[in-house]
């Protein structure tokens, strides 16, 4: 899977966000806010093909977590990205 290439992660002060312009007639544009670790992961995953394992490995390298916890967190994050439509179709 891949992150949508048209989305840009932006930082304002200590906040991270992504603006997704609605393409429908009615403006239902969305602003997503990301916490520090999600924003860090977004930067790492930008432009590359990745799997849940890629995400879990990144989490293990960066944070002091067990492999099981990292795998579980990676799964949650990917489900979240998928649900919000932030991944390439």
């Amino acid at each position: 899977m891949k992150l949508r290439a048209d989305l840009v992660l932006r930082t304002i002060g200590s906040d991270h966000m992504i603006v997704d312009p609605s393409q429908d007639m009615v403006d239902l544009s969305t602003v997503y806010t990301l916490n520090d670790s999600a924003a860090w992961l977004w930067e790492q995953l930008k432009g590359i093909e990745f799997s849940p394992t890629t995400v879990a490995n990144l989490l293990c390298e960066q944070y002091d977590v067990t492999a099981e916890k990292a795998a579980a967190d990676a799964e949650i994050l990917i489900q979240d990205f998928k649900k919000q439509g932030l991944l390439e179709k």
Partner: protein
Amino acid sequence: MTLTTSTDIQKKQYKIADIILQINYPIVLDLEKLLPTFRDFEWREHSSNPVIQVNLTTDKAPVEPDMGMLRSDLSISWGDRFCFYEKEEGYITTIVNEQGNELWYLYSERNFAQSTVYIPESNDYEQSTVICWMLMMIFGQAALLHEIIMIHGSVINLKGQGIAFLGKSGTGKSTHSRLWLNHIAETSLLNDDNPAIRVTARGVLIYGTPWSGKTPCYKNEAILLKAFVRLQQAPENKFEALQGVKGFIAVLPSCSAIRWNKDLFAEMNTTLEKVIAKVPVGFLKCLPDQEAAQLCHDRIVDIAVK
């Protein structure tokens, strides 16, 4: 023999928010009469490569078998007389003329640097209003690639610095500006509807433009932007400073960019990101009274000092 030759085309340049807009028009049109609000923006030094070019023509609009994808068919200004289409290479905007027998037809390249307006059967007043509106639309999009955002709001000049009031149509932006003019010393109106903002080495500037809604206030001036304040009608007056993403979200809906052009939309966000890093944002729930203006003024002076 043809009736029109290339010598019948005149050109005139305007400088708006430091951007040169050139209009190419047939000699039969009296441009100064059509665009009275542009008078102070005329650029006489003549630039050889204007950023925006707009051709006005009385030729018949092209008949397109495929108009492209209909992106919008409603506009605050034109109601259901308006349609906006996206094609691969550009955009088509149409507005039914007042007589209802022909279309105003605007074709713009994807980045809005080049556009052509086909003028249908219409009277002077209609020509003036529609062309002025189309130029605003074109400018608002074309400016995005130059770190300029046209915003919807009313701007007060307080001792040489700008305060931009934002909010949905009908919220009372102009009313709130009037309250400042009446009750706060050293204030004047910079623009009442469509100012432009730009990031410069000096800081974020806010510019008057030839577009100012119902208020005749077309000043060719630029001042430092001190703050944005989003307004909302309420039974009491309450001011809140908005930090980070909250500030961004409060300003975003007042910025002009077509959502369907992701490149222009992303440019706008990149500029807005820089703007928000420098300019404080407030949220004012308010009544249309003197106390609201006073509270807003005091709190802005407060957050600007911090």
